[in-house]
């Protein structure tokens, strides 16, 4: 059967992708960001997933204001890289896993989460920057990817509690798939940042680090934090962090197994407007 072996959490700042695409990774400003991923690139070579279930948000790319799905699962065979206004990033196209994705959709919908099923969409930096951070510059991504897009653009976005519960349903779905697959679930976005208005540039190091502590040790309590706390403490775009709770809810300690191992933890300010957080949790 398929198993979730680990969860990976990372910010997905577009400027990180641009720094890689434009060959700036050795500049001191960016070195500090990328140094936090040296371990992870080695780790992912040793723990190569067959499939990454990648939770991210679309940034007004595949979804305009015409259609705003709260949760959208990609069931396509492949996904093109989006042109976000400066041409598509020069990274490989993303290969999906339609069989597993459809299986997850069926299971999760039967568990009362009303997913939108997407068979055609371009993927933006929210999805490609995490892949670049973990796999580096490559001719082809080394695994299949199931894109899972969460609306965090138009309020109200789903609550932390709902995201956490959804994670549980996703794990149940994955573990009922017959093929032997090593699946990782990645939660992306955050950490504290605000991109708009006179309050742009807000960063809250203490709050972010407490979020990481609680994500490890008391995720269920963390999932009860209301949106307004994210907005006040971590900035209007810090709300992206609810997506990390989907990945955390999919870990096996949530239903009684041993606590996960913290394989890696990293925090740095800034990348462009944003606090960068990154963590790897391995299932016991």
């Amino acid at each position: 059967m398929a198993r979730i072996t680990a969860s990976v959490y990372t910010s997905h700042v577009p400027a990180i992708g641009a720094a890689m695409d434009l060959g700036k990774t050795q500049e001191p400003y960016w070195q500090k960001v990328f140094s936090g991923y040296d371990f992870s690139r080695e780790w992912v070579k040793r723990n190569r997933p067959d499939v990454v279930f990648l939770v991210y948000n679309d940034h007004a790319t595949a979804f305009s204001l015409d259609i705003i799905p709260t949760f959208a699962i990609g069931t396509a065979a492949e996904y093109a890289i989006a042109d976000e206004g400066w041409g598509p990033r020069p990274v490989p196209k993303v290969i999906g896993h339609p069989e597993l994705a459809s299986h997850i959709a069926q299971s999760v919908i039967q568990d009362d989460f009303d997913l939108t099923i997407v068979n055609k969409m371009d993927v933006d930096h929210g999805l490609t920057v995490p892949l670049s951070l973990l796999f580096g510059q490559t001719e082809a991504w080394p695994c299949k990817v199931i894109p899972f897009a969460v609306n965090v653009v138009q309020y109200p976005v789903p609550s932390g509690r709902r995201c956490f519960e959804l994670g549980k349903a996703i794990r149940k779905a994955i573990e009922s798939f017959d093929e032997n697959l090593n699946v990782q679930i990645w939660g992306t976005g955050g950490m504290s940042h605000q991109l708009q208005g006179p309050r742009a540039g807000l960063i809250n190091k203490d709050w972010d680090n407490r979020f990481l502590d609680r994500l490890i040790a008391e995720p269920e309590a963390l999932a009860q934090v209301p949106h307004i706390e994210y907005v006040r403490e971590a900035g209007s775009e810090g709300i992206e962090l609810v997506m990390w709770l989907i990945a955390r809810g999919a870990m096996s300690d949530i239903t009684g197994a041993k606590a996960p191992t913290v394989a890696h933890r990293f925090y740095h300010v800034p990348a462009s407007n944003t606090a960068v957080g990154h963590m790897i949790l391995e299932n016991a």
Partner: protein
Amino acid sequence: MSLHKPYLDVPGTTIFDAEQSRKGYWLNQFCMSLMKAENRARFKANERAYLDEWAMTEAQKQAVLDRDLNRCIALGGNIYFLAKIGSTDGKSFQQMAGSMTGMTEEEYRDMMVKGGRSAEGNRVVGEDGDAQAHRQPQGIAGRAAKGT
């Protein structure tokens, strides 16, 4: 009965909710059109003519022409959509975000490198943080406005 909106008293912040989205529908859809290279070229060739193809309000069109992102947001724009204007202009997200504070590009970048804007005094309207209305614009522009 009115909707629950606990986020209206966060200083310097507009939450893009259903009401803002409804106001900004055409403004944001115009921005979306700039994801196609041929539309970017047409917009750049004649901004006014291109904007007139959209059912936007005159105020929204003027805010775009002025590249006044705070005004665009007040009129229903969302930053992820407005970012398409910035990328059409060749601006980074940091330049766009910084432009909304009144700070120069350098001032804003320095603030970020030093750890970003503190949440202290910036959580609720009426405190004294640097994002509060009475402290705008920020940076050199603000000091010039106060004559100090």
